């Protein structure tokens, strides 16, 4: 596809630099590059991308695919958006922290920990965000198997208990 020169260039450069780490790199449409990275190499990949002009981390989107949990890291340079997917097994979900590369990601990483229960390795301890400080520990409301009905029933039971 010759019309997407810039997109193809960053795609092939990324795949060549991180051979075996980056998989499923593809150009889906104009100005959109997608790739999947192994979790262990995530900070390294992002550091390289930042040095290549992707200075701006738009946001981080967490997801729950059933067997896997994970996150998309949406990076921008002046023209392209690169969506880097990282997935981690549900049984032991761990993603390394990227604070050394993008310090701004601290709120996103706290959100991953709090709402999806993905352990972010290297995230400094602090108070909870975005859930309330008295929210039950070990419940992750953005996981697909989390049911709000169960939570509300538990809350109601707790209330009658205290009365």
């Amino acid at each position, binding site marked *: 596809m010759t019309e997407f020169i810039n997109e193809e260039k960053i795609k092939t450069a990324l795949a060549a630099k991180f051979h075996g780490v980056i998989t499923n790199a593809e150009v889906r449409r104009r100005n959109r590059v997608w790739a999947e990275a192994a979790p262990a190499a995530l900070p390294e990949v992002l550091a390289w991308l930042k040095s290549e002009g992707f200075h701006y981390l738009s946001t981080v989107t967490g997801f729950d695919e059933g067997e896997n949990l994970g996150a998309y890291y949406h990076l921008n340079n002046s023209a392209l958006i690169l969506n880097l997917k990282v997935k981690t097994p549900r049984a032991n979900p761990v993603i390394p922290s990227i604070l050394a590369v993008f310090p701004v990601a601290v709120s996103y990483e706290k959100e991953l920990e709090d709402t999806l229960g993905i352990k972010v390795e290297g995230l400094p301890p602090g108070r909870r965000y975005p*859930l*309330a*400080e*008295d*929210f039950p520990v070990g419940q992750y409301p953005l996981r697909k198997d989390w049911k*709000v009905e169960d*939570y509300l029933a538990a*809350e*109601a039971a707790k209330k009658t208990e205290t009365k």
Partner: protein
Amino acid sequence: MKTIDKLITTALLKSPWILHFNSGACNGCDIEVVDALTPKYDVERFGIVLKATPRHADILVVSGPVTRQQAKRLKTIYDQMPDPKFVMAIGACGCSGGVFDGCYGVVPGGLDHVIPVSVYIPGCPVRPEAIIDGVVKMIQSVEATMK
């Protein structure tokens, strides 16, 4: 009612000072509260003044569903207000939790599950006329109990 209490309540009703608290609203009702205070409706000419601290306030105006994180803070603010005190629940969210009722982030059931509420003003967002009407009806009902 003792004479001193009667005097205090009369003074309060003559010029109720309010404290506005956003307990997790979308900001729609907050804009309407400001609308009621600013020159178009101008409730300040009736002595209704927005205060910056709960210790000076007589009426707590709460807009929005109460988020879990804020429930304790809201209770603290309510406890800091001097007696007699009143609470107005502004908007559908303040009255019942609105569309946010049942979310993991909010206290189920709305404002009256956290603090006692004197007046409920429905609407999404409420109209400034409705807020003024709510204040007037509250004042009338308190005056009726004093006679």
